[in-house]
């Protein structure tokens, strides 16, 4: 009798204990992985990240990038997301992950992390700037120089 009572007591105690247990499931599926790195290829590692469904205030994920500068999340089909990564010194990125037929497509919006690189981009910028100022020079030269204008050198 005493044994039965003890067994019953143990079973009754086990039920509430199970209520505190965290169940887990391991499954493999498709996720979006956003990788963030500086222009020289150094990962934006261990920095603050948030993921929101576009137009929503409540983030679906708050966390940090991993050692490789990656953040991964599982998107709902047909939903676009905005991923923001913040480094303490003001670097970071905002990336829009567009949903298209259930498959996510990367569409970067802006990023200081990809801020440089590419000799072609630098050359293009230089050409545009020089072209702009040479165009202005032609206009000014055509209109005639004012006596109060500065002429360096």
């Amino acid at each position, binding site marked *: 009798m005493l044994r039965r009572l003890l067994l019953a007591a143990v079973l009754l105690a086990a039920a509430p204990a199970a209520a505190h247990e965290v169940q887990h499931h391991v499954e493999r599926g498709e996720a979006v992985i956003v990788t963030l790195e*500086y*222009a*020289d290829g*150094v*990962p*934006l*590692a261990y920095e*603050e990240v948030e993921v929101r469904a576009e137009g929503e*205030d409540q983030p679906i994920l708050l966390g940090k990038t991993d050692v490789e500068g990656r953040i991964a999340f599982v998107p709902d089909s047909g939903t676009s997301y*905005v991923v*923001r990564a*913040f*480094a*303490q*010194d*003001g*670097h*970071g*990125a*905002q990336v829009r992950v567009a949903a298209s037929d259930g498959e996510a497509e990367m569409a*970067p*919006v*802006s*990023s*200081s992390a*990809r*801020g*440089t*690189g590419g000799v072609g*981009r*630098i050359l*293009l*910028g*230089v050409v*545009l*700037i*020089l072209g*702009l*100022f*040479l165009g*202005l*020079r032609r206009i*000014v*030269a055509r209109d005639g*120089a*004012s006596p*109060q*204008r*500065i*002429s*360096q*050198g």
Partner: protein
Amino acid sequence: MHVPDGFLGPQTYVSATVVGAGLWSVGIARVRRQLDAVALPRVGVLTALAFVLMMISIPIPGGSTVHFGGVALLALTFGGWTAFVCISLVLLMQAGLFGVGGITSVPVAALLIGFVGAWTAVAVHRLLRGLGDRVALFGAGWFSVVVPAALMAVVLGLQPAVAAGSDGRPLFFPFGLDVTLTAVIVPHLLVGVGEGLLTVMMIEALRRIGVEPVPAGGRA
């Protein structure tokens, strides 16, 4: 200091746009009135140099990157207003054409890097002139980087207080002043050294080809 979109709240960038619009109108009017056909290509070359300097990231310990700006060089050669307009153009091009920095952060960056940086360089150069030409040039370059960086740290660090959700969570840049002042300013103390040296070397090189720094009375 190329801050991406989504880091600054509308309270910040709308205010900066309003202030910037007034300063840009003044600056463009002065540049149009005072630069002639000889000066314009030279301004273009230094603006292109500033663009290149801002596009070249220099890695620093900790994984982040910094870059030079050429603001003091422009300000001391062609005046604060010209430097402000040219740096604003560079920042707008970088954000609009190349995605370097957010388009919404351009007004803030232009005010801090372009306007504050340029006039800080001019003011420091005048203040330190008595200590020697190279000291004044170096100081102008150093402060033209550090002062805007400090102000950018304040702007970023105030975002959690300026724009938070109903649950108190920051809607934009999440770190406060206790973090940003150190994280932003300290790297720029070193960047300022490079900017100072660059300013000295470039101004001296320009003098050798007959381009003198702006006189004490100031220019555009």
